[in-house]
């Protein structure tokens, strides 16, 4: 039990690293979905013996949402927006990996300062969740496409979900389901907005959504 949970945490962190460096939009969507599904298996390992039916229903709902519905929504948005396939990050491969590993190290240090209550037995949950949140931020800031930014948001929520599991080991239901519902509505609204963006701009490069700013280049002949 203990080892399986540890293996899952390692898998989550490895998925973080691969998300940080992957350059294909379809792969990113699949990786984020895989991460959500793997994290959903964690509550089934809590407690000893066979998992109770409540936990099974809960895990299956999460797997359905994160493994099927979210990727479907995002792929639909991607297809409708005719997104180009590549989402190469601005910073290179080595820099992304080092940033992620550094975040994991920092998160581990933070994890030692925030002691978890004794009910949780996997010590790596706090660092893994913080590292996943950091990866989500990395995705949002170093990629240009609107869809990857939504993916970054989903990855942040994955991290928060893992952390929530660490705390509410016995009662994950209310808290996590409410959160999931919120995420679902948020992703839905974002998907609609992406569709509008693609229609309005003919692309979904948020890098080029920079008309509104306060930095104006000097123009000649302006009376100021």
């Amino acid at each position: 039990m203990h080892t399986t949970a540890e293996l899952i945490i390692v898998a989550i962190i490895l998925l973080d690293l691969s998300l940080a460096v992957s350059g294909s939009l379809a792969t990113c969507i699949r990786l984020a979905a895989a991460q959500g599904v793997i994290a959903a298996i964690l509550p089934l390992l809590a407690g000893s013996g066979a998992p109770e039916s409540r936990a099974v229903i809960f895990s299956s709902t999460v797997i359905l949402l994160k493994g099927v519905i979210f990727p479907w929504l995002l792929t639909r948005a991607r297809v409708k927006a005719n997104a180009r396939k590549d989402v190469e990050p601005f910073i290179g491969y080595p820099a992304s990996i080092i940033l992620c590993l550094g975040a994991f190290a920092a998160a581990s240090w933070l994890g030692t300062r925030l002691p978890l209550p004794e009910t949780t037995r996997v010590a790596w949950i706090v660092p893994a969740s913080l590292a996943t949140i950091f990866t989500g931020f990395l995705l949002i800031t170093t990629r240009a496409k609107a869809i990857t930014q939504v993916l970054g948001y989903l990855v942040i929520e994955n991290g928060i979900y893992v952390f929530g599991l660490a705390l509410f080991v016995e009662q994950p239901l209310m808290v996590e389901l409410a959160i999931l519902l919120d995420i679902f509505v948020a992703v839905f609204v974002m998907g609609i907005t992406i569709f509008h963006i693609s229609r309005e701009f003919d692309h979904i490069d948020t890098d080029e959504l920079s008309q509104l700013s306060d930095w104006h280049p000097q123009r000649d002949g302006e009376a100021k």
Partner: protein
Amino acid sequence: MKVVAQYLMVLALSPLLLGIINRVKAFFGGRKGIPIFQLYRDLFKLLHKTPVYSRTTTWLFRAGPIVGLGAVLCALAIVPFAGRQSFLAFDGDLILMVYLLGLARFATVLAALDTGSSFEDMGASREVQFAVFAEPAFFLALAALARGTGQLSLSAMFVSLTPAAWQSAAPVLALVTAALFIIFLAENSRVPVDDPNTHLELTMIHEVMVLDHSGPDLAFILYGAALKLWALGALISCAVLPRHSASWFVDSGGFMFMMFVLAAVVGVLESVIARLRFLKVPYLLFTAFSFSVLALMFQAAR
């Protein structure tokens, strides 16, 4: 006496690995392929030939293969066999092993540079570039193992590794094994880092460095490559299949079987994967590095 017997067995059996790899590749290619013992015949033939030396080379060129083989022979003395002590084991020998392998590479590179041909220079620079990324990964992987088992000697580390360790420390061991495997591929110039069969100018890395050697020198180099394959492979086999019984025969049998399986896996990999672009090879090594770092961090926090 057993340790000497182990060492001699390793010396005798390592050329087999290359034969197995070639045979597996041939099988995938629908051919019958080279006989498994071909490398022995090649070594025998080469030892009886007269070497040809270019007039532009110096003693470095002649010393390169000899130093290389000597270093690898010493490194092999440190590597454990079937989870048992090697005959040159002491605390901190893992650092010595890594540096002996580095010394072998250094000698080869110097010999290549000594020829004065830009061809060999290119290969040498590529080889060293990959080594820059591979060595930290190697060190950190070994450090993670050392931290995990609490020992500083390679043999002692693998002696204390048991199947139970896989159950309690599976993530760390899995990461270390993955990192070691990638480094194994990189150090031995296998696909996806380097294709051992190519002889095109732009694509050679390791072959080009040894292009000018002939006769016994070439025999030493080929034999040294086989020994290096065994040395790094032994680490992986010991990690994957730790000692699980008290009998030397059973463990050795399992260990050698594991080595042959490893060779077969390399053969399969070579047939199935294409070689990476040069720019992407450092990324692969970086992945190995990240595996090692993660393994070390996980181990350090236990």
